[in-house]
């Protein structure tokens, strides 16, 4: 047993699944607001409800779904649609790499299933859990992922149905839940971190790089560039400050 009070023991089985489901709850308003919009825009772009549902279930990412609708509606080539989706979703390479730190004890099949349903939101929740507990149980990740996935598909389908009757003011409030959820996750990550000064540096650099490039680059590239530069600078700062200490 660890004597560290901050460390929660890693759970397994049904209890872990249930706690994963509960961990997903704060992200649900975000999925519904963006899913509503993603479904509605699908209908407005000429996609049928089953087509929108298929995109939601298989592609399972708002930004790429928006892109898919607009490119397909504009008559783009199959390969150029796929290439654009690749560019927009490049951040998943970073997220998947980062989560690999917490999945050493899982089987390949468990890693495959956990990774398949990775989104910005579930990544934020899972990364915070992993940093706190040192490992992510498969059952917990499954609970988190399945609830998120089902809510996303449902939200897209409902949005596609109600496309023409959506009240805009409702969407504004719901839409902001995405930003406030990431603010919450970032704060929780910061409070749980053992390297608060370096986390602060990471956040400051990421914000600065985003502000400097947001007008000039496509937003998915901005996020990748900002995250890469910020993490690199924080790692360099860690190496630099650790050199003085004896090992």
């Amino acid at each position, binding site marked *: 047993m660890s004597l560290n009070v901050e460390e929660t023991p890693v759970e397994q089985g049904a209890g872990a699944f249930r706690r994963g489901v509960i961990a997903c709850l704060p992200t649900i308003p975000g999925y519904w607001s963006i899913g509503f919009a993603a479904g509605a825009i699908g209908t407005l772009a000429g996609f049928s409800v089953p087509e929108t549902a298929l995109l939601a279930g298989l592609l399972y990412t708002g930004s790429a779904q928006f892109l898919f609708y607009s490119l397909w509606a504009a008559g783009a080539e199959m390969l150029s649609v796929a290439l654009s989706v690749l560019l927009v979703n490049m951040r998943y390479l970073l997220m998947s790499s980062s989560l690999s730190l917490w999945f050493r004890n899982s089987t390949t099949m468990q890693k495959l299933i956990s990774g398949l349903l990775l989104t910005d939101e579930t990544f934020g929740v899972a990364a915070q859990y992993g940093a706190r507990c040192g490992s992510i149980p498969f059952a917990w990740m499954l609970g988190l992922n399945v609830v998120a996935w089902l809510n996303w598909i449902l939200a897209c389908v409902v949005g596609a149905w109600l496309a023409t009757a959506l009240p805009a003011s409702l969407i504004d409030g719901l839409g902001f839940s995405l930003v406030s*959820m990431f603010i919450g996750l970032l704060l929780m990550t910061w409070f749980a971190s053992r390297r608060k000064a370096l986390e602060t540096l990471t956040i400051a650099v990421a914000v600065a790089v985003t502000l400097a490039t947001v007008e000039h680059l496509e937003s998915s590239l901005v996020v990748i560039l900002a995250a890469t530069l910020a993490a690199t600078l924080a790692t360099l700062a860690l190496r630099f400050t650790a050199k003085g200490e004896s090992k």
Partner: protein
Amino acid sequence: MSTSLLITILLSAGITALMRTVPLILLSRFRMAPVVQNWLGFIPSAIMAAIITSELVHKPLLSPSGLSMSLMAAALATFCGMVTRSLFVTVIAGMAGILVLKYLLGA
């Protein structure tokens, strides 16, 4: 549904699935150098900070006088999150903040 649409959906979904799973499956097989582990450990904060910033810059809800209500609601959410250390309270504070600001500033 046309065949070409179905193939394009499957192709896009396949590419996305590979990016979501391959690093997780491959990198978790071995213990990485501490410097790489440290770097990956900083990625979550960096990505979230970048997403928040680009959302606030790209889609600001402005009051009629030009103030960014998004920025004010974000500040409120940050404050509530720091005080309560609760994800739920932070999310609710941000959403309530936007609705109250829209009402008060008449947007």
